[in-house]
């Protein structure tokens, strides 16, 4: 007996490695393993199982963090060029890591079945997905500014690699993304070197020291570099142009993953650097001269504009994927706005919106991919009436758009409500109006989405379509289900955001299973959903029991009066949806930012041609003379005037 007790089992040795080490090791092994044996048909299932295991590890880590552990350390650390590189996972990183692995789990599951077999090089896509997960975990667990930057670059380039997998236009879109991301990364690089210059170190604490030691001008430079650099990734305006084409051209499952979490890495970094390390008070006290604005309120307005404008651009899209990715940009604005409000309600709302958005956006993208898988297109002008052919996909999409529009009973309503409420309590009526405007645009455009794909008249070429296979329907239904459950019982999601909020610091949001209780007004979704479902049930009861008199009408039955119908006349208007609205906002549509982007491109081209011409003309000895003369004047003036 005593012998048995003294024996150490292998799992007891595991405490040498922390949970984070296990997580990173598993991710690295998975990524490298998939590169080697990615061609096998089992690769996707293997990856799905591993992501599931990683979720379990994260759950344990979450329990530890919830019980008051500040962060989960990693044994991995390097000393390079006199700088220490370390990694550790705190609550904020954990929250985003959970979403990352979760999204990868569903994307991988979705890609392992029939959809993946139809892809050209699915093995590579699985491997790149695993690489993305690894890179994101490294970013999320970074322990200092240098490892943050390394993780940032890894995430950028891993995303670039997966974006190119679509081929053709996807490569062009990914190229555009790459330039934006590179520019952003260089801004971040400059910013962290600025911090190092002031404090001589690159730890997170050094940033705090640096801000107190810097002059106002320097802090402004630092703020702009960080905000612009990280803002590129989350497509803050005016750095948003790359995102919609890049994400929508990515192959379906990977696209769902990127849409759900990739852009949120920018939000993570912004929260980490600006909110957690700099602090909102510091941002608020950074006043813009001659105005009433501060850096914080300026960023809030940027977030608000990012919320509104892309939403209305989404309205004008004719491709389902483009429509959704433009919304993705807009929803990022809500999240940032919520976090920047700074109250416990706002922060919780922003963070919960990250979670909610990941669930419904992934579900929506998987659903649209299912449509493409069957119908071969996502062009909203060429679809319609699929509700009878693909009912489960329709259900997913319906639940998804309810979430996206922020209506009960889905979870999107809860987080948006929290954001509105925090704006209202925070005395920001103008921003609240903008949030409402954005929501209005969202509702209009998601109706266009579901109407043009599923409602109306089924096209002749789609008569034979079948529902997507179970391997595709199941993950997207589960995602939609999560969206419903966390809408019904938002306390579940708030428990998770709680951990992240604790890591950021500040007050905690009191909440319970059904919602939040505040002095200025409470929300209990159990009641809301209960009432809603009860009302819908009552309506259905009335509709079916009392009015259940129906007769079949043939499609071409001339009930519309006046003229004969034929197959080429559509019952629903999918082309030029919302023409009146389009006339109103149309002139704003191709805006100045696109032109600015083109202008920069032209400028670079012209400058490049100029330099080439300077060298192509064979007058180099003349240039030599020129430089000697100018140089002599230059050095002479330096030499004579000491």
């Amino acid at each position, binding site marked *: 007996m005593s012998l048995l007790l003294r024996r150490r089992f292998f799992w007891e040795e595991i405490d040498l490695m922390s949970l984070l080490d296990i997580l990173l090791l598993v991710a690295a092994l998975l990524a490298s393993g998939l590169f080697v044996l990615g061609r096998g048909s089992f690769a996707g299932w293997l990856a799905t199982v591993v992501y599931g295991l990683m979720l379990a590890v994260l759950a344990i880590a979450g329990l530890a963090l919830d019980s008051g552990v500040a962060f989960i350390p990693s044994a991995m650390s*390097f*000393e*390079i*060029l*006199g700088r220490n590189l370390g990694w550790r996972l705190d609550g904020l990183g954990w929250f985003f890591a959970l979403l990352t692995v979760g999204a990868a789990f569903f994307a991988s599951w979705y890609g392992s079945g029939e959809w993946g077999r139809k892809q050209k090089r699915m093995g590579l896509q699985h491997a790149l997905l695993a690489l993305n997960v690894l890179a994101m975990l490294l970013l999320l667990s970074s322990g200092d500014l240098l490892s943050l*930057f*390394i993780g940032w*670059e*890894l995430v950028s*380039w891993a995303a670039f690699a997966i974006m*190119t997998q679509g*081929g*053709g236009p*996807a*490569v*062009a879109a*990914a*190229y555009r993304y*790459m*330039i934006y991301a*590179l*520019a952003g990364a*260089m*801004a971040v*690089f*400059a910013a962290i*070197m*600025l911090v*190092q*210059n002031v404090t001589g170190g690159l730890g997170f604490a050094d940033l705090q020291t640096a801000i107190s030691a810097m002059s106002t001008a320097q802090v402004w430079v630092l703020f702009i570099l960080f905000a612009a650099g990280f803002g590129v990734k989350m497509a803050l305006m005016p750095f948003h142009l790359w995102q919609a084409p890049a994400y929508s051209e990515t192959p379906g499952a990977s696209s769902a993953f990127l849409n759900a979490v990739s852009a949120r890495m920018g939000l993570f970094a912004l929260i980490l650097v600006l909110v957690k390390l700099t602090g909102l008070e510091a941002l608020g006290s950074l006043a813009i001269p001659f105005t009433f604005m501060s850096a914080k309120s300026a960023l809030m307005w940027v977030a608000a504009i990012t919320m509104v404008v892309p939403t209305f651009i989404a309205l004008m899209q004719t491709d389902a994927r483009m429509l959704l990715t433009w919304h993705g940009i807009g929803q990022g604005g809500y999240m940032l706005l919520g976090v920047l409000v700074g109250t416990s309600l706002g922060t919780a709302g922003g963070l919960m919106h990250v979670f909610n958005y990941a669930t419904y956006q992934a579900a929506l993208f998987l659903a649209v991919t299912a449509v493409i898988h069957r119908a071969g297109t996502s062009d909203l002008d060429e679809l319609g009436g699929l509700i009878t052919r693909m009912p489960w996909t329709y259900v997913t999409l319906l639940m998804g758009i309810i979430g996206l529009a922020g209506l009960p009973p889905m979870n999107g309503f809860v987080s948006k409500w929290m954001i509105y409420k925090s704006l209202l309590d925070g005395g920001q009526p103008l921003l609240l109006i903008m949030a409402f405007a954005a929501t209005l645009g969202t509702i209009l455009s998601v109706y266009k989405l579901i109407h043009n794909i599923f409602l109306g008249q089924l096209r002749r070429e789609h008569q034979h379509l079948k529902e997507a296979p179970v391997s595709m329907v199941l993950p997207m239904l589960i995602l939609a289900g999560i969206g419903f459950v966390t809408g019904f019982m938002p306390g579940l999601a708030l428990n998770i955001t709680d951990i992240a909020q604790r890591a950021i610091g500040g007050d905690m949001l009191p909440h319970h299973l059904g919602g939040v209780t505040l002095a200025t007004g409470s929300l209990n979704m159990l009641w809301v959903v209960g009432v809603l479902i009860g009302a819908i049930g009552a309506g259905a009861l009335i509709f079916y029991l009392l009015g259940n008199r129906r007769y079949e009408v043939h499609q071409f039955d001339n009930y519309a009066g006046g003229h004969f119908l034929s197959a080429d006349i559509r019952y629903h208007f999918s082309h030029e949806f919302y023409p009146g609205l389009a006339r109103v906002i149309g002139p704003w549509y191709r805006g100045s930012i696109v032109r600015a982007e083109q202008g920069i491109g032209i400028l*670079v*081209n012209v*400058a*490049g*041609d*100029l*330099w*080439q011409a*300077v*060298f192509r003309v*064979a007058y*180099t*000895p003349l*240039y*030599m003379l*020129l*430089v*000697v003369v100018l*140089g*002599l004047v*230059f*050095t*002479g003036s*330096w*030499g*004579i005037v*000491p």
Partner: protein
Amino acid sequence: MNTVPQIIFPVAIPLIAAFLLPIAGRCHAGFGRIFGRAAVLVTFLASALLAWQVAGAGPASSAMGGFKAPLGIVFYADNLAMAFVLLLNIGVWLFWPSGDEDRSGPYTLLLTLLGGGAGLVLSGDLFNIFVFYEIVAVASYGLAASGGSAAGFGASLRYLLLSALGSSLALMGIALVYAAAGTLNLADLALLAPDVLRGPPGAAAFLLLLIGFGVKAELFPVNSWVPEIYASAPVRVTSLLAGIVSKLALIVILRFLVLVFPMPSAYGLLLTLGILGVLAGELAAYRARDLNSTFAWSSIAQLGVIAIAFSIPGPAGIAAGIALALHHAVVKPAFFFIADKWRGDVKLLSGGARTSPLVAALFVLLSLSIIGIPPLPGFWAKYLLLDAAFSSSPAYWLAAAVVLAGAVVEGAYLFRAAGFFYGGPQKGRGAALFMPGELVPAFVLGAVLLVAMFAIAPLGAYITSMAVQAADVPAIAAQILLGGN
């Protein structure tokens, strides 16, 4: 003081071999090539031994002919010089022509380039440096023309005219220095400079030397030979010139700057030319249509970045410059090898990744490193540069911003090309398969890059110590002036 007469070996052995090589080549056709390779190997071993000694016992010097400085010529070897001597040796070995020709010309020129290049970084005498620079220059004119094409002759001639004018300017600079100080020894000048070289003559002398030596260092604007020569010379010569010889010239400029002309106007001049070089190179490379001229232009830009690094006073800037130079010496030749195989308009290389996946992957790896993506070595070199630049005056902040913006443009044109390799249908003959054997040097360099990624910490420490040694003017002056037999 550490006196080591063997310091002459890296110069003497290749020169003897160069003199005897035509005779050996005449005896037997294949013998010449083997003889040359053997000479490079022996030089490498002797240099490695010397480098080992220097690393262990500290900088060494030797007064040629036993005439102590400042009367005679003194060779001075520190870790920096030895690192570049070894680099040159390895480069010549790696880029030794693989053809089975019996002409001894290119071999002779390569050996003299080897000896001359070693003398260039080892010499501690202003005029002696000029002589070795001319050896390197004449050898490179010949090598640039060794392709045997008409364009090669024309390009080489224009290169020669430009470079010779530059050399004359440099000689005029030397005359000015001598007229002001009455000595040519670098250490002696280092001691006299504060008194005699701070006026207009000193500044003018530095400018003339900078323009003269800048021709080889691809400094703006005396680098117009670069695209022409790199397009017409054999790829091995291109790799050697772009990868290594240009760095030797920059090391010489660094020595002048640190020892003789450490004054604001000199730093400012090098900084200005470096910034202009980055702008010119990156923007012109963005508009280049084929890989070869893309890399030629980008080479100008990267040399500009190194010049910026060297223009930062203090050891931090020198360390950054050394790191950038070593990194560029590994990456650029590999690029040129790829460009040599994939000639012509880059659009015609569409689908190249499908026929030659390894080459395309190598291209991406090299691109990522040269843009400066962590954790590849290129990132750490740029890190050192920014670290040094941000702790200097605001003028260097501007330079850092230019370098970062340049990296974005760099990414744009490199990944535009990569986009053609990976995207689009396969067309054109340019992307055809080729013998992998011809790209062995490129893959070797790629492997070196990957290995270096895992050795950043020791490499960084070594480079920093190298830079500290190279910036310690009193110690260098003492070693040169007091060393000798």
